[in-house]
């Protein structure tokens, strides 16, 4: 926890901002990111910079292109234009797996858990790449297998306990209640040790008390792992409460960026959400 926290504010990447800490590269820089899907420009000219330990919000009306931005960042869709710099490294030509290894982990708006695996195996699956034992030691149950399996077992339980889920570790993921499934997706993403965590509507379908718990958990995760987070969310109180900066999308374009207070009073944002006043 001794890490020096330098907050960076998302700005149009070309603009110069004096308080920006240039010595430490931001975790994410998007330059003119865009994609055409089914003939429409689902996202265009997306320019954003995210600091090392920032919690940023990505909001906008339905169909604005928020999820598409996540899909571009994780290369589920290949961008048609633009550059993504992750920890200063250009991710051009990367696939989803490489992007994850480079430090992005995400959750999905439509929950995508490994339904037939147990809760703990969902988490362990995400720790696959840190295990080194080979197949032979698995078949023969050699000490290296036992040691590493035991280690990740404990680590997985610890991660689950952040969200109070250690007791349902052996339950199959598909049989969890909805809110728990969303939390498990976050744990699974965290298990890959990301430097940037993308959360796509984590509070969707949760009741108010669950949402408050989730907010605390996200804060806890942020503290513990010093990870940057981008949060897509329709629940405005959640976004305004935990995000340090917010970016608003509408029809694939950024219409506003700034602190929660700026955004709440921004006329363009109000118009996008409420429609033009007649």
């Amino acid at each position, binding site marked *: 926890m001794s890490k020096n926290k330098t907050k960076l504010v998302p700005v149009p990447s070309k603009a110069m901002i004096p308080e920006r800490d240039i010595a430490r590269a931001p975790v994410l820089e998007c330059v003119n990111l865009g994609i055409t899907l089914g003939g429409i420009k689902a996202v265009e000219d997306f320019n954003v910079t995210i600091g090392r330990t920032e919690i940023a919000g990505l909001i906008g009306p339905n169909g604005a292109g928020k999820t598409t931005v996540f899909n571009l960042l*994780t290369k*589920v869709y290949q961008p048609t234009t633009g550059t993504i710099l992750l920890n200063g490294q250009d991710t051009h030509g990367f*696939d*989803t*797996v490489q992007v*994850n*290894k480079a430090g992005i*982990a*995400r959750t*999905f708006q439509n929950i*995508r*858990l*490994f*339904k*037939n*695996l*147990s809760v703990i*195996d*969902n988490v*362990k*699956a*995400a720790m*696959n*790449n840190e*295990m080194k*034992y080979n*197949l032979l030691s*698995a*078949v*023969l*149950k050699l000490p290296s*297998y036992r040691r590493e*399996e035991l280690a990740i077992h404990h680590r997985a339980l610890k991660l689950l306990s952040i969200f109070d889920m250690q007791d349902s570790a*052996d*339950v*199959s993921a598909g*049989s969890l209640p909805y809110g728990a499934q969303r939390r498990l997706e976050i744990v*699974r*993403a965290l*298990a*890959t040790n990301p430097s940037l965590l993308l959360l796509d509507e984590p509070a969707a379908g949760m009741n108010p008390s669950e949402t408050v718990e989730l907010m605390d958990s996200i804060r806890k995760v942020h503290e513990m792992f010093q990870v940057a987070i981008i949060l897509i969310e329709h629940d405005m109180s959640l976004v305004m409460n935990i995000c340090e900066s917010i970016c608003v999308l509408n029809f694939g374009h950024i219409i506003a960026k700034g602190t929660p207070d700026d955004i709440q009073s921004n006329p363009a944002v109000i118009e996008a959400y409420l429609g033009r006043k007649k």
Partner: protein
Amino acid sequence: MALKKFISLKRSENRKVFITYIAVIAAFIICQGLSMAGLLSSSMQGMLVPICAYMVMAISLNLVVGVSGELSLGHAGFMSVGAFSGVAAAIIMQNFITYAPLRLALAMIIGALFASIAGFLIGVPVLRLKGDYLAIVTLAFGEIIKSILNNFFLGIDQNGLHMSMLKDTTNLAEGGRLIIRGPMGINGITKISTFIAGFILVMIALIIVFNLVNSRLGRALMAIRDDRIAAESIGLDVTKSKMTAFVISAALAGAAGCLFAMNYFTIEARKFDFNMSILILVFVVLGGQGNFLGSMIAAAALTILPEKLREFADYRMLLYAVILIMAMLISNNDEIKYFFRKLNPFRNKQEAE
């Protein structure tokens, strides 16, 4: 209770593994006992080795279909590669390895090796495809393997091995032996497969597959099966995992093919055709995808069943077809499924609610 604690059967997977081992060992002891007491009919006696081979095929295919979630319609191809290479190796070794069990073991290893090479070569293109396209390409490879083996000649003489395609141009020297004779396959095989060897192979296959499924590979495979995009998003290498499973599966099929072939005097490539691939797939689907014990039981039952139906003479294959269709219709009927779920003593508490 003490035993239960000892092998930590808390998790239902561990329990399933344990029950499977016990069931296989018990079945072996019973069959071996019956056979030694002379209580087994000669037709049943003759089926013991093929049943073991089919069980290993079912385990092998279940690794691909059940655990990896890919449909393979060409598994008989790997079986035939294993059968031909293994038997050819056994024939070559005949003169200097006289101890039959050792020769059989080596032959099975060689069969597994060749089949795994075939599995790798086929896996490279196949595993880039998805779903039904992948299935059709495995079917295509199965047919290609059959065509090639059907036109392949291999002979041995004092100058070493000679092979040719389409026509027998091996020109063996005096005293040489033509081992693989194209469409005639291999004949004059010394039958060295035994029930015990079959049992050991089944156990080895089970241990390999169970331990892999409970390792990082198994988790990766099942994760990819359940949701490929989510699996990629947590950094799981889809192609590599699937390839590993495919090659292991091919190797097991190769060993099974060798065991199977060494139980007959002659084998032909025709035997390992599309219908054979389908037969094995039926074991897996009837026994349950990912359910190894179930698919082994299905393998045994469906091997014995046609024999038992023999009294219906001409109608037996018709009956077999009807049973197959009925089994599918019944096992996918929601009401019946619910009924059986209630009966299952091992169901999760969660499921029961």
